[in-house]
């Protein structure tokens, strides 16, 4: 495998202490920050450098507006409220959460992940909103900062009331295991959190149990899978999905050297909690994300250096397209006619979901998107 496909993990080594100033170039902000979103219209929202939040009108693939965000950029991870009026962001170098009113660009909520003066706390890609929009959830990884040393503390689930305004404090906190990251809420309010396995958490009591094993999946005939999920996409199909790679053994000897490596998708249906696991291709190419078509959930779009469309059941490649430069995230629109690629540089590529023909590129005001998360919704 080429060195270039493996660069993300090295680049993503986040220094917790501010080291360098972020991009200084001023954002070429669209000046219509007050332009309201129109009910019934379909939009995509995402964040990028230096610290922008852009709303894209998917009817004509243009940038409707760009809001300037407070503090520093990174990772620009975003969730849309159930009423589709606010964007909730993990930002400020993984250190703060913000609520932004999309019609006005006003910041209506902010919370610093550090809850004490002698604490330095980061949330690693962990943010979700309750189905009624009243609470947001995040897992915080604190360290105690002594005058001459640091001490790693146990992570905690922090629950915030979305109506708490600026400088909000959590209404509840619960101890959590380490290495938790992306999350989503189920229709019944269950919080699903990805980590070594995917846990389901009762947000009232903090009790958790394994909902979908990953590291401990013990799938007969397979070795442990590897999962990279930094993109908690609120899919139109309402699933919490993870692409995995795993060794599939030839026989009972479980010899890793002769095993075939496969790609697969494992997911939790957020409406029912049902779990599904399915291989869909041999491991020949690296992908960062995959998303099912809302038109046909058996069709999967995957992307990094190339955009692919697979039939999951048949384990068959249906279409493939060159993408110009790498994109981390694939999204789809509600009728399943388009695929949007985002992440990395400062554009969004639009493809026809049927043919994978390129339709257009939408340039974004500002710079690099890095590992942001884009969301698609109908206002």
């Amino acid at each position, binding site marked *: 495998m080429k060195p270039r496909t493996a660069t993300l*993990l090295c680049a993503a080594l986040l220094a917790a*202490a501010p080291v360098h100033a972020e991009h200084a170039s001023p954002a070429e902000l669209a000046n219509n920050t007050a332009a309201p979103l129109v009910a019934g219209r379909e939009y995509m929202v995402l964040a990028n450098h230096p610290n922008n939040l852009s709303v894209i009108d998917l009817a004509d693939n243009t940038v409707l507006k760009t809001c300037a965000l407070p503090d520093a950029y990174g990772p620009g991870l975003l969730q849309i409220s159930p009423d589709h009026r606010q964007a909730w962001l993990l930002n400020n170098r993984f250190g703060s959460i913000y609520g932004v009113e999309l019609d006005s660009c006003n910041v209506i909520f902010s919370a610093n992940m550090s809850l004490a003066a002698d604490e330095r706390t980061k949330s*690693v890609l962990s943010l979700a909103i309750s189905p009624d929009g009243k609470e947001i959830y995040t897992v915080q990884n604190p360290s105690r900062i002594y005058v001459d040393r*640091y*001490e*790693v503390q146990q992570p905690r689930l922090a629950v915030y009331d979305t109506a708490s305004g600026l400088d909000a404090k959590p209404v509840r906190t619960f101890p959590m295991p*380490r290495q938790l990251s992306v999350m989503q809420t189920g229709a019944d309010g269950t919080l699903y959190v990805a980590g*070594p396995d995917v846990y389901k958490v009762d947000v009232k009591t903090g009790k958790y149990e394994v909902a979908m094993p990953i590291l401990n999946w013990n799938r007969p005939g397979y070795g442990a899978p590897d999962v990279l999920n930094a993109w908690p996409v609120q899919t139109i199909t309402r699933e919490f999905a993870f692409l995995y790679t795993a060794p599939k053994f030839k026989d009972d000897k479980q010899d890793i050297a002769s095993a075939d490596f496969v790609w697969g998708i494992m997911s939790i249906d957020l409406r029912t909690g049902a779990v599904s696991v399915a291989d869909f291709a041999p491991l020949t190419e690296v992908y960062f994300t995959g998303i099912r078509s809302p038109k046909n959930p058996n069709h999967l779009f995957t992307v990094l*250096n190339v955009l692919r469309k697979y039939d999951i059941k048949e384990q068959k490649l249906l279409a493939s397209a060159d993408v110009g430069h790498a994109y981390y995230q694939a999204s789809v629109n509600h009728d399943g006619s388009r695929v949007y690629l985002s992440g990395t540089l400062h554009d969004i590529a639009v493809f026809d979901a049927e043919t994978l023909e390129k339709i257009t590129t939408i340039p974004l005001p500002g710079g690099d998107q890095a590992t942001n998360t884009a969301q698609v919704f109908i206002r």
Partner: protein
Amino acid sequence: MNNKPIACATLTALALVASAPGDAAERQINVPNLIMERCSICHADDLGRLVRISAQRKTPEGWLMTVVRMQQQHDLGLSDDERRALVKYLADTQGLAPAETEGARYVLERRLNTVENFSSEQFTQMCARCHSGARVALQRRTATEWERLVNFHLSQFPTLEYQALGRDRDWFGIATNEIVPYLAKNFAYGDEQWQKWKQTPRAPVAGEWSLSGHLPGRGDFNAVMSVSQRANDHYALELRGNYADGGALIGQGAAVVYTGYEWRGKVEINGVEMRQVFALKGDILEGRMFVADHDEVGADVLAARQDGGASRVLAVQPSYLKTGTATELSIIGSNFDGELVLPAGIKVEKLLSRTPGRIVIRALADKRALGTHQVKVGAAEGGELAVFDKLDRIEVVPPYAIARVGGNGGPAPKVDARFEALAWAKGPRGEYRVGYVPAKWSVAPFNEDAKRDRDVEFAGSIDAKTGVFTPSFAGPNPLRHLMTNNAGNLAVIAEISAGGKPLTAQGQLIVTVQRWNNPPIP
């Protein structure tokens, strides 16, 4: 890929030696006072003891990295003179014994193509994936201090436990419960060796040194290095010598000896700034001398002290003779006293010159001398001289190297890779090493991917004569698929002709992206 060379890390390179003679101010500084004044605000306990600082030992470069972090992350104010004085003091009072650096000096010497190989796979995966494992092996700490280091890592780099080789395991649990005890056992603070080294009398340094070296891409050289003391552990240097190709080697500079043996020099040689990282072992200096801002360009150096040192043979240049071909040989050493004795079968056709550090002869060997030998001058014996009739095979050295794209308006310069062909011959007692021979160099795709992506065309080019590979420019290349950068995976091929028959060998060269940070210990 397993054979991965030393990985990514932070901090920029900082000189350990001031420009001579600008270090007078540095030597005026009272370091214990400085520590009490600047460090104790954060580091003294109720009894005024410097708890953290006193429970670690490391190399000068190790201390440099820590002190620079105090400046960059903890707003510690220090002038450059103060920093150098502080690092000197800490390395002298809490350094490593020479034996404690054995096997890990390649990072100090900046041999960045070294492929590390630790017996513990767990240690390698946990602690040698972002930086070298040698960075760890060159420290000694109490268990508490190793544990605090683990806590520092995860607090400073919170995504560490989510990355590849982090998310597949309980990183913090393993680091705390398995790696800390492993480190506390294998790299314990209170080592006997350090106590013993502290009692060992320090070797004298001033005087003349006879120096021999080998610079890949150019060849052998020898020189006389005159060392004069300017202050305790601080020296001025002058070098005068020649490359085997006839070019002069002239330079001057300064050196500081840390911890009684860690020689760090900064010299300008023929107008190029170079660093010396040597270990002083009695009357011997051994290590590497490299271009300051191109550490891939560097020579192995071995030197012996003439004044008061032993009589020694250090090297024979070139290190081989072909039977029946009269060849000029230089025997480099120190305090030569007595007759030059060559093994049976080697005849001195003519003595060309002789000084106490260098004997130059024209020699002719016959079949009786086939094999490898040491050379005797009086009571001294050393060097290596191989006599061959026919070369049997060659190998590419290093077998695996990294070059980095650079330039193109970016801050990072290109990093070359330099290859040599090492020749071997067969004798009745098996194979023996002959030495580096001139070869014809070329590159080819290393595998199918490299062929498909036309890496040979994009990644750079190799000088057919010197074996120096110069990588291509940095940044995306619009001519490449996906506008990717000029990375590549190449086979490096050496070819020589041995008695009319071609001999070839192959190495691997990875051309990759720039190294953004260049810490004192990679």
